[in-house]
């Protein structure tokens, strides 16, 4: 009986198992092997040992893209969490039309794609874009955004926060699971709403916040596609913004693989990226023991 059920198990699992070999675990191993070669696809691969990794460690563009990625990742996730969390709390206040607001905030993340990327290039246009026009109404001369190396990533962060409304739903669900008796107890002890927020709401929500922090960071590392659209003028070439100020690690890997055809170096870079993600997440998990409350 158990034997035939096991056979059934593997039968049903077949699609995923094939997928794992072809598109999952298989490529992971292959990528590691490729990172030890020089391969341009136009010629057979040649063994290069650790050369790619040595090149990586000495590559200023690698460090630059790393800094850019972390800057963008931490910035957009921090700002995104704050915005979404606060909006979720507002939505939880028994207002009418919750469905409407939820949809409005959720929408940008659904339509995110090339169209909205181009839209934001226009919004961030220093001369006639929406943002600088609005700033002009209150007397501020807006910066060059995507053309200015110092303001390019902040511009991208704004776009990312606009598209982060999907997490509001998760926060809403979490908020509705906070036990009201905790609020009652706090109120009976004389706590005002500010105190209640920091002593009840935030700690109770900390697992959900942490979940969004982790998934947000992982996603931000992979969001180079839109940067490519926005900074390369749409061709297959270029990308990376003024003075490489928006060169993300993912974008650098893409450039090395599909513009310069350095498959070996690109693979080595991708493993370095994997390592960096691991370190960043590891740090987050260690820090989480300080501030995340589990029941």
């Amino acid at each position, binding site marked *: 009986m158990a034997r035939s059920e096991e056979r059934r198990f593997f039968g049903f699992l077949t699609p995923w198992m094939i997928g794992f070999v072809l598109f999952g675990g298989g490529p992971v191993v292959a990528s590691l092997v490729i990172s030890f070669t020089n391969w341009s696809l136009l010629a057979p691969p040649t063994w290069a040992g650790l050369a790619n990794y040595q090149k990586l460690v000495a590559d200023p563009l690698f460090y630059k893209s790393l800094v850019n990625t972390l800057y963008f990742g931490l910035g957009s996730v921090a700002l995104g969490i704050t915005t979404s969390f606060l909006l979720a709390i507002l939505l939880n206040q028994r207002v009418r039309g919750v469905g409407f607001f939820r949809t409005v905030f959720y929408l940008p993340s659904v339509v995110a794609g090339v169209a909205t990327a181009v839209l934001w290039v226009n919004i961030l246009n220093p001369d006639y874009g929406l943002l600088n026009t609005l700033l002009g*109404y209150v007397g501020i001369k807006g910066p060059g955004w995507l053309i200015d190396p110092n303001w390019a990533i902040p511009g991208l962060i704004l776009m990312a926060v606009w598209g982060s409304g999907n997490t509001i*739903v998760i926060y809403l669900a979490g908020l509705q699971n906070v036990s009201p008796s905790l609020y009652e107890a706090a109120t009976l002890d004389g706590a005002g709403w500010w105190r209640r927020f920091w002593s009840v709401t935030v700690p109770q929500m900390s697992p959900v916040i942490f979940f969004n922090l982790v998934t947000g960071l992982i996603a931000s590392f992979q969001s180079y596609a839109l940067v490519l659209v926005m900074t390369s003028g749409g061709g297959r070439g270029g990308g990376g913004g003024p003075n490489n100020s928006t060169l993300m690690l993912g974008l650098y890997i893409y450039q090395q693989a*599909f513009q310069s055809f350095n498959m070996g170096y690109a693979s080595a870079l991708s493993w370095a990226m994997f390592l960096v993600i691991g370190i960043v997440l590891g740090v987050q998990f260690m820090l989480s023991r300080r501030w995340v409350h589990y029941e």
Partner: protein
Amino acid sequence: MTLSTAPIGATPTVPVVDEPLARLPRHPAGKNARILRSQRIFAYVLLLAGAAVFILPFLWMLSTALKSNLEMTTYPSPLVPAVPMWDNFVKGWTILPFTRFLLNSILVTGLSVIGNLISCILPAYAFARLKARSRGALFAMMVATMAIPAEVTIVPTFILFSKVGLVNTYWPLFLPAWFGYAYFIFLIRQFFITIPDELVDAAKLDGAGHMRILFSIFVPLSRPVIAAVAVFSFVGNWNNFIGPLIYLRSQELFTVALGMNFFNGQYFTQYNQMMAVGVVTILPVLIVFFFAQRAFVEGAKGAGLGGR
């Protein structure tokens, strides 16, 4: 999720469930009612402001689509154009063969969504219901693959497809969808394990085989999560840009996303026409989203709180 009545004298910041107002406790009277009301009005104002900020880019998109060339490049550019240039839509759509691109997108996305549904429901059932010694280890391995960044697999996968001569075809775009996707399998499996054993045992007593059980019991009961997966899959594939970018070479194969990017590269000065096309390209996603909104929200909740 419990409701509660806050003690009199407490400022009501009691979290409430999304329920019709009729079922909620009576509002407290007098001073507390005023505090409650003003708190709600305050929240409402902030929410409206937030909603305005979030909607503004969409309005700008529509507005730019209707502007003349002169209007869109002068400062300050008005929110409402003087004369709406509706023929920007026609011009933009025909500069590049966007009807062709649209049909291509529908084909690739359709194949991907169907593939995703089939190849994720089956393994989810296996992980949820069928026993095997290695089940736990395989499940852990699958979840672990979710942590691997796409950049690691993108190069070998490309090499694989180019070695078998499938570059510049649609195969690399929809084939992986037919072989499972860890995130969806995880999501569906979490839902499947909540289905009570009694239903399965009853069906087995009636002599139903596993396929029968899966499609007659599990799938109908899991409509919200399966709808959510279908919508996530649709949206993800429709907006997919890097895939088409690295695999498609001939223009007549381009998807809508790639077409938009090409537009951006070749005719980037034509923002108004580009935005017009952009508006049309996000319409399918908007329509699908509005119809499946319920499912989307339920599925997202399940993803966030999957702590079983």
